């Protein structure tokens, strides 16, 4: 402990022949606290623009609202949150010290621990945290209207999501890049740590299963989609071989080749699906595709990384940056008019067709990624902290990176609500409600009594034709809706209506690519966690190279998520409708676990006055997820409660009924009984484990407060011998110091300090 002695030790260890490794505290403080008229004017302008944008979204009730207001409301709020709130966290809670070397400096090995330019690492971290999640959740949540989702995404990220990412990254960096699980064990003891580990493992299984379900729903009965997504496998294999044997290390070159092949696969998919044999051969039902993904998932997880995972990761990163830039430019250029109401008819009900449950708490679990995502804690601890160059950069990379993901979620929301509401509900309601044909779907949507919705079968048929699909009815899961929205916007930007089918399949392709990468990586990470856990009892399992152990653990993991996936695919109630809340709950529970660990660490650091910064998002996440879990477990409404539904169907079976609700056969009814029981039991396990972790963290926190602090598990401080600025744009003082460093002879600067 004792910050003073750390400080003096750091001061003594500094190399006198080098410029200082940090801007002098007093100089930095003066710079931060000086308000020139230009600076004041800038922030007043940002605040005013943000206020006007929020006013347009929240209070003006016209027929339509322009999409550009979403962009302004989001960006202005992010800027204010970043400049002021994250600065408070930095100054009073975390207190980074640039005189202290980061793990990338004191553990440098040129491989895993490498100092990385902050702007590069920002993109790297962003590509690791953002995937299909922020693209899917907001689309599903649009059932309730645009405003609840917009407020949660923008305010949630500033006060919760970005705070979690920033804290976890900083604490992990101070601990040499330790993982969340290791930190939980260290801070919370054996019981809390073990509960956190088991919860993480189960949560990963659920998350992988439901992501896979999104892909299955997007590809089912879509020959074009199956062909083009299927082609990513040979393309990735080719890239892997190319990088391994033909031209090692030529990452950009092979990514561009891969990208061109990918575009060819999308265009070729249209041609193949247009032929009779192609349509017949690639027309697969959802159960077949689910089995395909399960088998693929197992093989992909046992193949060496270089052959499939690494090259697809390159493709995925390449697409991710490209797609997001493209979507942002398109929305700003096209500026679609939104006709969806701020609050829809379903905002005050709990039986919506897209996802069931009331706005509180279910909206807040439906949108997880983009506002608060617990999964990020696994990325923010571990990989990224080993690459950070200077302590002060964690604010830009951790907090800023998450703001960026939130912006992706806002853009996905805009794309999804730019399509007609009638089409939205026809696409996202389960088959049992829409009936599957354009006529029955149109009739059902019109019977909902939604304002300004009057859809005709012709419009539904035409939309399907425009995007090159046989049907768009009941394509739930969010991805196809986003793809239609994106195609709708992009064709106004590039290519016109004739390009809609291309853009639709382009969107499906990149969503599938992100998800399959997450599935692969998730299976591998989960397999290692399982191997490690079993290894505590059977030491042989800890050897990563022991094939039988690796294969067995992979099979267990794939079997587990595969079972949940098949359950979702065959669910008579519509898998997304019942399972997506479970995905959100799992993700948010992980966030609660991560924040609980951060709370304990913060208390042990002795900064009690600022504990609320962690306590506020933790309380919110805990209340939301525990309430949502209790609804799912105890609600007497069958549409919401798993066990209520289970009982309703069990009773119907016992009464000898042969059809009940949306299940039309005895087998379907039995499936509902089985599925609801599994889902209910999973909910009970998740919430119990999370409560154990939260209680353990609270106990550790109280103990620390009573003792006036606690044991600090940080690595001992090492004086830093490098310098780089903290944010995107260096300040005047940072530029001066950087110039001093750049004036040094090359051999004195241990590696290049902050190029760029």
């Amino acid at each position, binding site marked *: 402990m004792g910050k003073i002695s750390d400080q003096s030790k750091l001061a003594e260890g500094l190399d006198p022949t080098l410029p200082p490794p940090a801007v002098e505290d007093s100089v930095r403080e003066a710079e931060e606290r000086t308000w020139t008229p230009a600076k004041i004017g800038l922030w007043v302008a940002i605040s005013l623009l943000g206020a006007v944008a929020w006013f347009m979204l929240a209070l003006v009730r016209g027929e339509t609202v322009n999409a550009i207001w979403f962009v302004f409301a989001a960006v202005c709020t992010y800027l204010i949150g970043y400049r002021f709130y994250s600065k408070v966290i930095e100054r009073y809670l975390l207190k980074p010290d640039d005189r202290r070397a980061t793990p990338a400096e004191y553990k*440098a*090995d*040129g*491989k*895993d621990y*490498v100092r*990385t*330019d902050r*702007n*590069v690492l920002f*993109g*790297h971290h962003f*590509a*690791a*945290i*953002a*995937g*299909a*999640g922020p693209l899917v959740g907001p689309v599903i949540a649009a059932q309730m209207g645009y405003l609840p989702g917009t407020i949660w995404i923008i305010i949630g990220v500033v006060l919760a999501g970005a705070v979690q990412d920033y804290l976890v990254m900083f604490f992990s960096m101070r601990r040499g890049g330790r993982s969340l699980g290791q930190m939980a064990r260290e801070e919370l003891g054996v019981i809390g740590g073990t509960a956190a580990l088991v919860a993480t493992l189960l949560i990963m299984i659920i*998350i992988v299963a439901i*992501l896979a379900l999104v892909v299955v729903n997007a590809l089912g009965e879509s020959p074009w989609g199956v062909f083009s997504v299927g082609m990513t496998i040979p393309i990735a294999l080719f890239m892997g071989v190319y990088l*391994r044997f033909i031209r*090692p*290390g*030529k*990452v*950009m070159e092979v*990514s561009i080749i891969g990208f061109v092949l990918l575009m060819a696969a999308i265009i070729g998919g249209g041609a193949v699906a247009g032929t009779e044999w192609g349509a017949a051969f690639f027309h697969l039902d959802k159960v077949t595709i689910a089995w395909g993904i399960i088998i693929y998932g197992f093989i992909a997880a046992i193949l*060496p*990384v*270089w052959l499939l*995972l*690494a090259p697809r990761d*390159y493709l*995925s*990163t*390449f697409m991710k*940056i490209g797609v997001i830039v493209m979507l942002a430019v398109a929305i700003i250029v096209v500026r679609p008019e939104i006709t969806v109401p701020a609050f829809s008819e379903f905002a005050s009900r709990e039986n919506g067709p897209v996802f069931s449950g009331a706005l509180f708490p279910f909206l807040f679990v439906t949108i997880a*990624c983009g506002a608060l*995502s617990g*999964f*990020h804690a*696994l*990325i923010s601890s*571990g*990989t990224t902290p080993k690459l950070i160059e200077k302590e002060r950069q964690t604010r830009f990379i951790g907090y800023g990176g998450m703001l960026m993901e939130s912006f992706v979620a806002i853009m996905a929301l805009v794309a999804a609500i730019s399509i007609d509401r009638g089409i939205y509900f026809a696409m996202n309601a389960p088959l049992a409600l829409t009936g599957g044909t354009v006529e029955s779907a149109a009739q059902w949507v019109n019977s909902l009594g939604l304002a300004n919705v009057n859809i005709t079968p012709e419009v539904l048929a035409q939309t399907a034709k425009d995007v090159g699909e046989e049907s768009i009815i009941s394509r739930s899961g969010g991805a196809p809706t986003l793809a239609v929205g994106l195609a709708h916007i992009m064709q106004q930007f590039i290519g016109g209506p004739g390009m809609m089918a291309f853009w639709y399949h382009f969107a499906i392709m990149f969503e599938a690519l992100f*998800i399959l*990468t*997450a599935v*692969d*990586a*998730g299976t*591998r*990470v989960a397999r*290692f966690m399982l191997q490690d856990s079993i290894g505590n009892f059977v030491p042989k399992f800890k050897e*990563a*190279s022991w094939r039988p152990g690796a294969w067995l653990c992979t099979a267990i993991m794939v079997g587990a998520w595969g079972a949940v996936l098949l359950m979702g695919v065959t669910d008579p109630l519509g898998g997304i409708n019942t399972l997506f809340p479970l995905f959100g709950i799992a993700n948010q529970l992980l966030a609660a676990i991560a924040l609980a660990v951060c709370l304990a660490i913060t208390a042990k650091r002795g900064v009690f006055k600022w504990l609320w910064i962690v306590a506020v998002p933790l309380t919110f996440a805990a209340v939301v997820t525990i309430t949502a879990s209790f609804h799912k477990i105890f609600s007497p409404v069958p549409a919401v409660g798993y066990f209520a539904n289970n009982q309703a169907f069990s009773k119907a079976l016992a009464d000898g009924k042969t059809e009940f609700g949306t299940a039309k056969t005895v087998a379907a009814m039995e499936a509902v009984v089985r599925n609801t029981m599994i889902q209910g039991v999973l909910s009970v396990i998740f919430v119990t484990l999370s409560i154990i972790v939260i209680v353990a963290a609270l106990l550790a926190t109280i103990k620390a407060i009573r003792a006036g602090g606690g044991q600090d598990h940080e690595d001992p401080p090492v004086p830093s011998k490098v310098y780089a600025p903290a944010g995107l744009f260096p300040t005047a003082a940072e530029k001066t110091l950087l110039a001093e460093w750049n004036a040094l002879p090359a051999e004195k600067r*241990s*590696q*290049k300090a902050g190029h760029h």
Partner: protein
Amino acid sequence: MNTVVRGLRGFATYMGSLMGADAYQKYLEHFEATAHSGPAMTEREFWRDRMDRQDSNPQGRCC
């Protein structure tokens, strides 16, 4: 025109480092800056080693 070319080149360099194309370069820099026994890995060896280490040290990708 020159600005455009420079901008594009800068973007390409950025994307390259983002995807880790400069990993070998960084390894060499580190290798030269520190005391070591034996020669540095060749580019081919380095990439093999890098991929093979990922096999036993997988990195998560988020949703």
